[in-house]
C-alpha cells in the first residue's frame, strides 16, 4: 500500500512545525477518500503513529476508522483507542481540524453509551472540551455531549467544572440550549439551585423563532427550581398546567394542599422525569414557612413552629430548623431544655476583611463584564451585515444630506 506508507511518512515528517502542519493538512484531506475503505490498514498504521506528536494524522486516520459501523466485540477496543487518543492529543494540532475532532468525539460518546459505561467517557470528553475550546468563553459543540455523559454517569462534579466557565460566545443555538439544559440538570443534581436557575433562565429566554422542545422542558424545570430556590412563582404558560397549579399552591403556603396537587398530577411529573424535583419543592415549602416565621417572632417554641408550619411534631420541627441553621438560611439558637428556638438577626456586620474581599471580587467582575460589553458593541458596529441592515433602514427615514447614504449591500 504505497499511498498508506507515503501517508505515514508524510505524517511523521510534517508534524513538527505549524507551516508543515498546514501542508500536512492539505495532504490528508486529499488522501481521505482513498483511505476510507481500508480498515485493517488503518489499524496497523495507527500503531506506528504517536497520538501526542502526530495528532492531526492520527485524527484523520482514526476518524476514517470509526466511520463505519463496528461490531460489538470490537467496540470496546475502539473505544479504548479513542479514549487514549483524546487524552493525549495535542491541542494545537487538533484545532486545525476541529470539526473532525468533534465528530470523532461524538462518535466516541455514542459508543460509550452503547457500551452502557458512560463513566469511561467522562474524563476523555472533559479534556476534549478543554482542548477544542479556543478561549474560555466560547461554547463548543462538545459541551453538551460532555454534560450529557456526566449526567448519565451521575458524575456531577466533573460536569460542574465545565460549567464554571462563563460562556459568552455561542455559535450554534442548539448547542447552547442543550448545554444550558443539561447544565441546569447537573446543577440541580449538585443542589446548586442558584446556578441551575440561571442556566435554565438562559434557555427559556433565548431568542428563538419557533418553540423548542428543549426550551419547554427547561421551562418546566425552571419553574420548579425557582420554587425551591427562592419561593417565587413564575408566570406559567398554558401547557404547563400541572406546574402552574403546583406554583399556586406553593404560594398559598399550605403543605397538605400542595401534596394533594402533587399526588394528583404525579403521572404528568413522572412523564417529564420531574417527580424528584417536585418532591424537593414540597420539602422546601416547610423551609419557606419557617423562614417567614423568623420575620415575626423573636422566640418560639418548637411545638408552635410545628403547628404553624404543619409539621407532625416538635422533633421534626427541630430537625428542619437544625438543617436550616447548618445551611445558613436562618440564624437561630435552639434551647433544648425549654424547647424554644431563639431567632437572631443576621450577624454579618459587613466589617470584616473577608467581606471586603468578596465585594472587591464582585466589583472586578462587574468591571470585566462591562469591558466585554463595550468590546461587543464595538465589534458589532463594524460588522458589515449589521451596517448593511441599518443602512437600508436609514434610507427609509431620509435624513437628507446629514448622513452619507450607506450602500445597500456590502460585497463580502
Amino acid at each position, binding site marked *: 500500500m504505497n499511498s498508506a506508507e507515503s501517508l505515514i511518512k508524510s505524517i511523521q515528517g510534517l508534524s513538527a512545525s505549524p507551516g508543515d502542519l498546514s501542508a500536512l493538512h492539505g495532504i490528508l484531506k486529499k488522501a481521505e477518500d482513498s483511505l476510507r475503505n481500508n480498515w485493517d490498514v488503518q489499524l496497523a498504521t495507527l500503531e506506528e503513529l504517536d497520538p501526542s506528536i502526530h495528532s492531526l494524522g492520527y485524527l484523520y486516520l482514526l476518524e476514517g476508522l470509526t466511520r463505519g459501523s463496528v461490531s460489538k466485540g470490537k467496540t470496546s477496543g475502539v473505544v479504548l483507542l479513542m479514549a487514549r487518543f483524546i487524552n493525549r492529543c495535542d491541542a494545537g494540532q487538533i484545532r486545525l481540524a476541529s470539526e473532525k475532532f468533534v465528530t470523532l468525539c461524538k462518535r466516541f460518546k455514542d459508543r460509550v453509551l452503547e457500551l452502557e459505561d458512560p463513566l469511561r467517557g467522562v474524563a476523555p470528553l472533559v479534556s476534549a472540551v478543554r482542548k477544542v475550546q479556543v478561549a474560555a468563553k466560547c461554547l463548543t459543540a462538545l459541551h453538551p455531549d460532555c454534560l450529557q455523559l456526566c449526567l448519565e454517569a451521575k458524575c456531577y462534579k466533573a460536569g460542574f467544572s465545565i460549567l464554571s466557565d462563563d460562556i*459568552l460566545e455561542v455559535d450554534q443555538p442548539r448547542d447552547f440550549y442543550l448545554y444550558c439544559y443539561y447544565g441546569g440538570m447537573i446543577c440541580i443534581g449538585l443542589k446548586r439551585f442558584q446556578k441551575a436557575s440561571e442556566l435554565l433562565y438562559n434557555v427559556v429566554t433565548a*431568542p428563538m423563532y419557533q418553540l423548542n422542545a428543549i426550551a419547554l422542558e427547561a421551562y418546566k424545570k425552571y419553574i420548579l427550581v425557582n420554587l425551591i430556590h427562592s419561593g417565587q412563582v413564575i408566570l406559567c404558560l398554558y401547557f404547563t398546567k400541572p406546574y402552574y397549579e403546583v406554583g399556586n399552591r406553593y404560594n398559598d403556603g399550605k403543605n397538605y394542599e400542595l401534596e394533594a396537587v402533587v399526588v394528583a398530577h404525579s403521572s404528568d411529573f413522572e412523564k417529564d422525569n420531574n417527580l424528584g424535583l417536585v418532591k424537593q419543592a414540597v420539602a422546601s415549602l416547610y423551609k419557606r414557612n419557617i423562614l417567614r416565621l423568623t420575620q*415575626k*417572632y*423573636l422566640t418560639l417554641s418548637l411545638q408552635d413552629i410545628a403547628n404553624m408550619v404543619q409539621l407532625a411534631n416538635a422533633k421534626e420541627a427541630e430537625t428542619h430548623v437544625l438543617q436550616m441553621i447548618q445551611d445558613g438560611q436562618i440564624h437561630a439558637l435552639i434551647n433544648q431544655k425549654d424547647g424554644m428556638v431563639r431567632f437572631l438577626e443576621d450577624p454579618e456586620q459587613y466589617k470584616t476583611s473577608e467581606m471586603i474581599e468578596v*465585594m472587591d471580587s464582585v466589583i472586578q*467582575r462587574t468591571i470585566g*463584564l462591562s469591558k*466585554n460589553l463595550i468590546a461587543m458593541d464595538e465589534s458589532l458596529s463594524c460588522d458589515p451585515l449589521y451596517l448593511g441592515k441599518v443602512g437600508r433602514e436609514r434610507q427609509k427615514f431620509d435624513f437628507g444630506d446629514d448622513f452619507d447614504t450607506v450602500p445597500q449591500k456590502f460585497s463580502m
Partner: protein
Amino acid sequence: MERDEESSGPMMEMCTNGGGEETSNRRPIISGEPLDIEAYASLYKGRTKIMRLLFIASHCGGNQTMQLEALRMAYDEIKKGENTQLFRDVVNRINGRLGDKYKMDSAWCESVDRRAEQKKGRLENELSSYRVMKYVVLFMCCLVCLHRSFLVNHYLDNETNLIKESIRMGHNDFGDFYYACGLLSDAFKNYVRTRDYCTTAKHIIHMCMNAILVSIEMGQFTHVSSYVNKAEQNPETLDPIVAAKLRCASGLAHLELKKYKLAARKFLDVSPELGNSYNEVIAPQDAKVIDNINFRDFLELVPEVRELINDFYSSRYASCLEYLGSLRANLLLDIHLHDHVDTLYDQIRKKALIQYTLPFVSVDLSRMADAFKTSVSGLEKELEALITDNQIQARIDSHNKILYARHADQRNATFQKVLQMGNEFDRDVRSMMLRANLLKHEYHARAGRNH
C-alpha cells in the same frame, strides 16, 4: 305645563327625600338600646323611609315585634305614595300577620295603576308635541338663516329656548313620574335626557341632583360620583344646602366604593346640621381630624359617639371597643352602613392596635390583651397578621410573651442590597450578551442562506 318655580317644589322635596336627612336639630337616636323604629323613621321621609324600614325588617334577625313594626310603618308610607310594586312586596312580607287592616288592598292598587297609566299617556303626548314643535322651529331657523334676517333670528332663538325649556320640563316630569312609581332606571334615563336641553346652570344643577338621587337609590355609585363632579364644576356659587347635599352624596358614593378615607373627608365638610350616622367612619381617620371645630359642634349631637372617639384617642381602648360593640347592632340596621360595618370595625381595631404599640420599645402582651379585652393568644394572632402586612415593625417573643420593637439596620441592609445588585447585574449582563450572540448568529445564518 308647570313653570320653573312650581316645579322646583316637588323637586326639592325629592331632594330631601333622597338625601333623607333631617335639616332640623332633632337628635337622632343611636344608642345601645334596641332601635326605636318610630323615632328612627320619623327622621326620614318618602322613599328612603320606605327603603330603610324594609331593610330593617329584613335584617332584624328574628326580632318579631320590631319586624312587624317596621313593616306596618312601611305600609302606611307606601299607601301615601303611588308605588304599587313596593306595596305588593310589603304585603307579601306582612303575610297577614298584622291583622285584617293590612291585607292586600287590590282596589287601591288598581286605581293607582290606572292613574299612573293615564298620567303617563298624558306626559308622552305633551313630550311628543314639544318635539314636533322643536323641529318646526328648527326648520324656520334654517329658512331665516338663508334669508339673513337678524331680528327674526333673534325671535326664533327665544322661541327655541322656550321650546327647549318645555321639552326639558317634559322630561323632568316624566322622570318624577317614574320615580314615584318606582321605575328607577326609566326615571334615570329621563333625567339624563334633560341634559340636552339645559340652558342655565341652575338647570344643570337640578339635573345633576335628580340624577344623583336616582343613582343612589339604584345603588350605582359610580354615576353618583360623576354627577357630583359635574355639579361641582359649575362656576355658579352653590346654595349651601345644595352643596352640603352634594358632599353627602359623594360621601355615600365613596363609602360604597370602599374609599373610606375619602368618604370621611367629604363627610367632614358637610355642615353639622346634616345627619350624623356617618361619623363612625371618622374613627379610622387621622387624629388631627378630631380638632376640627366644625366636627366638634357636630359631636354635640351625639354624645355616645363623642365618648367613643375620645376614648379612642386617650387610649382607653377597652371602653372604646365596648361602645363599638353596642353600636354594632344598630349600625347593622342602617341601610348604607350595613355592608361595611364589619370592615370598619376591623380597621378601627387594627388602628387601635398599631397606635398602642407605637411608642414602646417592648410591650408586655398580657397587659395589652387586657387593654384590648382579648386573650393573649388571640392578640398574638392579630399582631402576627399586622406584622406580616408590615404595619408594625416588631417581633414577638413567644416564650416570654413580649413584643419587641425592631428597627432595621440601615447599614447592613445597604450592604446586602449592594451585593445583591452586583449579582443581578452580573447575571443579567451575561444573559444579555448570550442572547445578543444568538441573535447575531441567527442573523448570520439567515444572511448566509440568502446569499
